[in-house]
């Protein structure tokens, strides 16, 4: 019997499959489709201090083997997440969830993490995933993830308010992602997750203008898998903390590839938007894929 269990910062996951932030909401709507307790965990929608509508529409564009999004961190704000969203999740999900925290300043990351840590739902949270890599917001977001010093500053600030594992979500829109990961590790990050989306754009041939109202957006989907594998490989060789791999993962085989590149677990993003059952299907397919490639224990790849 194939053993799909993996460990992530001291917490054992039944399998390494984690729906990525922004593709799974706060989980409970997917629970209407299937029992989401089959997941390793999932990372909830990027949460900021204040409610955000995000960018103007259109904020989705299709690409060969993928898509661009410029949603811009739409979310109801941390207080509403604590009051309304997570109590709904608690009714349908028994496993530790990954709390994705976004912000526009180091203080905002700290405050959101603090409020979640001190709330009555803090027991639901297994890890904090600090998103310093959103390409779709201005004056924050990705700018923290493109400079080792700024990234380290965020880690240092957030580290003070939580004992829970801190995962830093990194941007691929950099020259040397391993250097950023190293800077995060040095300030006490427990893991890094990568890659967030790659900045891109498309034009509307009829209007001759950018298709997205925000002009640029983040590319995700199978198109980015090779880039993600390369960056996970480079990062895993540079740091000793766990690396969570994501970027175009759409099948059990992709999960295996991510782990061969050095990932401790894999997040599944855009695939959930094409097929709402994608994460469940990947989990169901994992044992057979492991058997096919002679892998008994996933944690030993």
């Amino acid at each position, binding site marked *: 019997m194939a053993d799909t269990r993996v460990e992530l910062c001291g917490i054992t996951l039944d399998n390494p499959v984690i729906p990525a932030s922004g593709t799974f909401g706060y989980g409970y709507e997917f629970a209407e489709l299937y029992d989401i307790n089959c997941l390793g965990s999932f990372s909830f929608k990027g949460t900021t201090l204040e409610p955000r*509508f995000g960018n103007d529409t*259109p904020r*989705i564009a299709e*690409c*060969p083997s993928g*898509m661009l999004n410029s949603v811009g961190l739409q979310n109801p704000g941390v207080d509403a997440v604590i009051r309304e969203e997570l109590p709904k999740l608690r009714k349908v999900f028994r496993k530790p969830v990954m709390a994705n925290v976004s912000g526009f300043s180091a203080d905002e990351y700290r405050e959101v993490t603090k409020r979640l840590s001190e709330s009555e739902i803090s027991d639901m949270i297994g890890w904090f995933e600090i998103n310093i890599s959103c390409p779709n917001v201005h004056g924050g977001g990705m700018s923290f993830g493109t400079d080792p010093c700024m990234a380290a500053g965020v880690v240092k600030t957030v580290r003070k308010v939580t004992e829970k594992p801190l995962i830093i979500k990194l941007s691929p829109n950099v020259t040397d992602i391993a250097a950023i990961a190293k800077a995060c590790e040095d300030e006490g990050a427990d893991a890094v997750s990568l890659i967030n989306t790659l900045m891109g754009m498309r034009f509307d041939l009829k209007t001759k203008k950018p298709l997205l109202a925000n002009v640029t957006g983040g590319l995700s989907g199978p198109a980015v898998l090779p880039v993600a594998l390369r960056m996970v490989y480079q990062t895993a060789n540079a740091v000793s903390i766990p690396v969570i791999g994501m970027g175009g993962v759409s099948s059990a085989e992709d999960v295996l590839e991510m782990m061969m590149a050095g990932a401790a677990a894999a997040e599944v993003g*855009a695939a*959930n938007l*094409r097929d709402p059952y994608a994460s469940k299907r990947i989990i169901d397919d994992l044992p057979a894929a492991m058997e096919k490639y002679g892998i008994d224990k996933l944690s030993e790849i």
Partner: protein
Amino acid sequence: MKQCMMTVIENMSLTHDTHRMRLEGDVSAFDAPGQFLDIQLDGRFLRRPISLCDLDYTDQYAREGVLTIIYKVLGEGTEEMTRLEKGAELDVLTGLGNGYDLSDAGTRPLLIGGGVGVPPLYLAAKKLREKDLDVTVILGYNSTDDIFYDDEFRMLGCDAVIATADGSAGVKGFVTDAFRQLDPDFTHFYSCGPEPMLRAVFEEVYKGAGIRGQMSFEERMGCGFGACMGCSIQTKNGSKRICKDGPVLRTEEIAWQIPE
């Protein structure tokens, strides 16, 4: 929402750029006109969301049936759809979105559709006519060559009025020009069409004539089932996802500012 495989049993052109497809399979997830389906096409990453135009059950349990969609060729994806042959199997998400609430229709509902906004009104008209209501339909097109389904609405027993932008058929102008020529004593309205048309209808029919209604919105979607937040719009009741909280919104909640 339900994911299922559906079989193409008809795929034909209605006009130079508008086509009709009939799909057979599990239709149990649909419960209102105005809902839509999201079709996966080979080689395309995102699905194609298309409104439900008609629905006929083929069993007594309202599970199996035939649904009709009408789609306009807008890009490569819809172009490929025209080449699908009878017997093709499609991966479809069914029963998506919140449709029209027909319980508000009153005794004399008005339906207003423009272009590919016409199809979802057909099933609404059919259901309203089943209740034997006095249904008026205003259908707007660019030109006489673009007209489809006007006869189908008449066959349901609706009073159908045509407007064409170039005046080549019916009233010259927009659906609002046709509205002005009617007795405005309607009890409720249902509408679907491009945003400029919806704005004109909002201003003239809701704000001007004081008739409340429900309008179906279109937006570029990612997933089609509420996960990606790609298609959100701001309303008086906060942000709404067109795909999940819509596509049908009530005039009272729409946040458009109309110049006084």
